[in-house]
């Protein structure tokens, strides 16, 4: 109630309100910095940390058991050789997408509303990609020899098979992770410096100082910083498209009905951004409440994200429709059976809930009121997350469980260990996020100041110096 009021009040100042009225440079620094330096963490923080650690320990158990027993403990079988592992891999990679998009593309497009959420998004990306990265390794029959997927000179005289999309994956994901990491870190440097300078405890000073790489905020620093940041943005822009396109090729390159589709790359990228933004919402909404950041992450931010979610959601839904159309239009017995089986077969329940989550539900975001209603947005974001997981489930499972030879059709049922591993990665992800908001500035101080500056003196000066 009171929160709604508050949002409204901010919203009314100007058409687009991206930063609280009362803020000055120093207030920004202290407001954001104090989360890390002074302010005692709210109890919600401890609660969520508790849950996160619980999940994390689940992950450790699941992995230990897996390495002991072998992937026999999972529900995978012949014909369904890929199960939860790959579903979750794609899901996490998708979630990772919002980060690069926001930081890179929106930066280049000079979308001012990206500031204040981009740091969170980038961090999310990092942990999401880590979660994703686990699965391809763990789902190997012989994880001990995973390094054979990398091209390196060896005594076997063997290279990886460069025709295999799985090898492309190795490159795509590792590049993506590295670039995101650098991008994220470079963005952090000025903030780390300001924290170093405000910190009272010696230990914090040293730690922040070490990470700040001796940033003094001199003109030359800013000059190099800005150009480096832009450069990196340029670098990672193609990645936004490439990574998930390549992930989609893991399927599209095969001949399995339901996988062998040319529409996969665009439709996967859209899906990725879609789920990415949903996850940002899921994280941001509680966060801004707990840390009273409604004046920095304003309702307009949420609105913007909701719009993007809607757009990408529509693209994804279009993807579903084309799949159905071509299943019918191709006249291919395998394709048409696959689609009929999805709609009416043993997994139809999953399919229809997918259609609801990603096709029907998002339409509510057409209404401004809905986009600016915290509750609706939060629920919506959860629905989207679920929907996108279901999408991967449908793609992986229903395509495999009844493909070409009717004699080898069979069902896939996840085991306890499949589920624990999945929950575990969520735990890992949350742990990362929760610790991050406590230990590092969750909102880019420097960029906010930049934004503030622009707000106060009308138009923007791209690389104007901002002093702490």
């Amino acid at each position, binding site marked *: 109630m009171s929160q709604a009021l508050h949002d409204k009040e901010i919203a009314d100042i100007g058409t687009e309100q991206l930063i609280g009225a009362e803020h000055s440079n120093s207030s920004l620094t202290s407001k954001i910095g104090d989360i890390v330096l002074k302010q005692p963490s709210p109890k919600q923080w401890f609660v969520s940390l508790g849950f996160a650690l619980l999940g994390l320990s689940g992950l450790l158990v699941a992995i230990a058991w897996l390495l002991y027993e072998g992937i026999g403990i999972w529900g995978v079988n012949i014909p369904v050789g890929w199960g939860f592992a790959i579903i979750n891999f794609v899901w996490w990679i998708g979630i990772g997408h919002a980060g690069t998009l926001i930081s890179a593309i929106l930066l280049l497009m000079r979308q001012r509303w990206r500031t204040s959420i981009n740091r969170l998004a980038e961090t999310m990306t990092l942990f999401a990609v880590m979660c994703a990265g686990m699965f391809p390794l763990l789902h190997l029959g012989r994880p001990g020899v995973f390094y054979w997927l990398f091209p390196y000179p060896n*005594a*076997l*005289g*063997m290279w990886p098979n460069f025709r295999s999309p799985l090898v492309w994956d190795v490159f795509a994901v590792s590049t993506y992770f590295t670039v995101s990491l650098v991008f994220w870190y470079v963005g952090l440097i000025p903030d780390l410096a300001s924290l*170093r*300078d405000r910190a009272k405890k010696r230990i914090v*000073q*040293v730690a922040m*100082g070490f990470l700040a790489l*001796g940033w003094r905020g001199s003109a030359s620093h800013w000059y190099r910083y800005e150009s480096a940041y832009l450069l990196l943005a340029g670098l990672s822009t193609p990645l936004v498209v490439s990574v998930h396109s390549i992930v989609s090729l893991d399927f599209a390159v095969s001949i399995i009905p339901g996988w062998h589709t040319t529409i996969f790359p665009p439709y996967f990228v859209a899906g990725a951004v879609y789920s990415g933004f949903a996850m940002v919402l899921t994280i941001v909404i509680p966060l801004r409440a707990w840390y009273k950041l409604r004046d920095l992450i304003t309702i307009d931010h949420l609105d913007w994200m909701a719009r993007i979610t809607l757009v990408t959601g529509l693209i994804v839904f279009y993807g579903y429709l084309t799949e159905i159309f071509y299943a019918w239009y191709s006249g291919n017995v395998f394709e048409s059976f696959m689609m009929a089986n999805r709609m009416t077969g043993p997994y139809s329940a999953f399919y229809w809930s997918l259609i609801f989550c990603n096709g029907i539900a998002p339409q509510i975001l057409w209404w401004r009121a809905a986009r600016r209603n915290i509750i609706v947005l939060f629920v919506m974001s959860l629905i989207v997350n679920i929907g996108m997981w279901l999408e991967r489930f449908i793609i992986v499972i229903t395509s495999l469980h009844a493909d070409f030879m009717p004699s080898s059709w069979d069902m896939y049922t996840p085991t306890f260990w499949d589920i624990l591993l999945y929950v575990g990665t969520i735990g890992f992800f949350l742990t990362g996020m929760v610790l991050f908001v406590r230990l590092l500035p969750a909102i880019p101080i420097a960029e906010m100041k930049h934004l503030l500056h622009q707000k106060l003196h009308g138009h923007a000066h791209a690389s104007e110096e901002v002093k702490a």
Partner: protein
Amino acid sequence: MPQVFSAKSNVLARATFLIAGLMLLVIILAGMYMTPYTHRTGVALDQPTPFSHKHHAKELGIDCRYCHTGAEEAPYAGIPATEVCMTCHSQIWTNSPLLLPVQESYLKNIPLRWNKVNKVPDFVYFDHSIHIDRGVSCFTCHGDVTEMNLTFKTNAFEMLYCLDCHRNPEEFLRPTDEVFNANYETPPNQEDLGRQLMEKHAIDTKQIEDCWVCHR
């Protein structure tokens, strides 16, 4: 406000990077150094009795096949049964202490336990007979055993080592009657000779490069 770090720390930072780099280098070098060590190439293993190939094969001129009977017909060249040693040593050097283990084995009917010098992994199916038959000499892989007092391996049988020959046999092939000849001199026209031999034996590198030639 006071600086957290003094100016020295820059030097410190650079130093750390340098050291890290050096350590990396060391590790790599160590790894390279380790390899032949783990393969024990050139290392003579302890054996129940210090058998000398040099003495038997060179000085006495005993043919490889006298002891390694399987070489021409079977996958395994074979290690001689104790009785083979005893064909001679029941007559000569009967009271040499070096031969005690052999005599003991023979009398008590307990097999000798030799340490394996040359070996390939279990998932490699190597067949001596076919190599001998196509003109790959014993000495090409095993080195000049006739010069070894205690036997050691001269080559680590890594996959690349095998591929070298499977990809260009012409560099290694000998006329079949020279296969067991320790004193064979590689002719200057080895390349041509090798190609002729490949022609003669219908050796097709396309075929002998297939995985299933060695791995089944």
